[in-house]
């Protein structure tokens, strides 16, 4: 275990029971580590357990078995105030920004909510801070008066990021946070995240099905399949390092613009 490890999952399991009483193993014996300031990627297809894992880290879903060590303490059984503090330490950014907003709450109302809820500052202060945060993510200060439907998806995602970072968490979990956005907007959001990470040094769990995106921003990548981690890729070149057959299948499903002619030929052959 590295010195500066901030989060460690040891043999974490999550089982769901369906209507017939059968057990579905969503997450099975998963062990991962996350160091301070590190960005780890979790990739895999739909239903592989990526999002369940994210929810476990954020303590939104209880584990069935296993240990989660956060800053040296087991957080599996956290309750009450300690749990509330944990919610502050781990922030999550979801896929669809529009779903995270209440349609009848202004952007300002959304931004100040955690600061008021966690009793970090009073409302007036929080509004001032909200404006600072908007400025930080490149949005106009007047946006605090706007409603979510007046903003584009990319702008909303910036607001979500602003709030997540404003609370100064140790870990930010991005669950497919750019997959609802256009590539050009995705690039802006990723650049914003990277720039903010440089500044505030949070650790990042980046969940995506886009292998190329994961490769471009993550220090390490875990490949998940049917609830299990099948491979960890340490370097920054998935194609060269991938050994597990499942990772190779995933790679063969990627449509690359760079390589369009070669792939096209394979199809005919």
């Amino acid at each position, binding site marked *: 275990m590295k010195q500066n490890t901030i989060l460690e999952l040891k043999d974490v399991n999550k089982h769901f029971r369906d209507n017939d009483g059968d057990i579905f193993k969503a997450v099975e014996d998963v062990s991962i580590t996350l160091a301070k300031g590190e960005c780890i990627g979790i990739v895999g297809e739909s239903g592989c357990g990526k999002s369940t894992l994210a929810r476990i880290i954020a303590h939104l879903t209880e584990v069935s078995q296993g240990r989660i060590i956060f800053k040296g303490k087991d957080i599996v059984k956290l309750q009450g105030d300690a749990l509330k503090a944990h919610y502050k330490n781990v922030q999550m950014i979801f896929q669809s920004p529009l779903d995270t907003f209440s349609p009848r709450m202004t952007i300002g109302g959304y931004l100040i909510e955690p600061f008021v809820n966690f009793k970090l500052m009073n409302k007036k202060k929080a509004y001032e801070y909200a404006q600072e945060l908007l400025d930080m993510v490149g949005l106009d200060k007047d946006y605090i008066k706007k409603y979510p439907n007046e903003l584009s998806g990319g702008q909303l995602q910036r607001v979500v990021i602003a709030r997540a970072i404003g609370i100064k968490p140790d870990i930010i979990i991005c669950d497919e946070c750019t997959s609802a956005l*256009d590539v050009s907007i995705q690039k802006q959001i990723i650049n914003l995240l990277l720039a903010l990470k440089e500044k505030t040094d949070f650790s990042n769990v980046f969940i995506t099905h886009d292998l*190329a995106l994961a*490769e471009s921003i993550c220090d390490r990548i875990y490949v998940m399949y049917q609830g299990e981690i099948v491979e960890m890729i340490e370097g920054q*070149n*998935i*194609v060269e390092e991938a050994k597990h057959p499942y990772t190779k299948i995933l790679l063969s499903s990627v*449509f*690359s613009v760079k390589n*369009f002619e070669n792939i096209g030929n394979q*199809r005919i052959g």
Partner: protein
Amino acid sequence: MCKLLEIKSLTVRYDGEGDVIKNINMDVGYKEIIGIVGESGSGKTTLIRTIINLLAPSSEVVSGDIIFEDKNIRKYNKEAWRKLRNNEIAMIFQNPGAYLNPIIKIGKQFVESIRNHRDISKAEAIIQAKAILEKMHLDDSDRIMNAYPFQLSGGMKQRVAIAMALAMKPKLILADEPTSALDVKTQAQIVNELISLRNNFDTSIIIVTHNIGVAAYMSDRIIVMNQGEIVENDTKKEVITQPKMEYTKQLLAAIPELKGF
């Protein structure tokens, strides 16, 4: 070469928003796959919805003609459209879950959609439906026919939707982001199904996607749209290796790529 579809100076206006697509000229050849790419709001979806006459009531075709097999289908009335839609031109939507009726079994929906257009018995329709499902690699066709939409995965539902579109052997399939709700592995399957459609049934396809990789993989030609206008329309090789417009270059540069490719 004779064209299957020709669009001539088409402009569509939305109430209060002005022209969402402006002076569009394009054509689709027989057996051709065309990829339309562009950002959200560039008018991709409006364009193909205009082709199949499924525009929202608040919109209006200001000018232009849509010629399908030498007939101007823009002037068609409701009855003519009922015959044309699905029979000759079919559409596949982004979210198959929204397109299938949640409380009717797949089999019943499928048979209904076949019998709406063909005067055949239920038993015959069932046989046809199963055959098409199997062609889409939904091997357990009995189970699929007996399932409600929620019992199928996203990829399976999309394959059912494609099978239903295919049942009438249309000459042109319009696919609006057919894979963007699916993950990479399922996406690859669906894309390959669409390609084999063209290879086996000579169907022309217009695929609208924001995934330029998908467009590059499956289409013969790529059209790039920006703010309601076509800014690039060429073979995929030209568009990807030698884009003319700055916009296309930026779009291509924004795509994350695996280093090892």
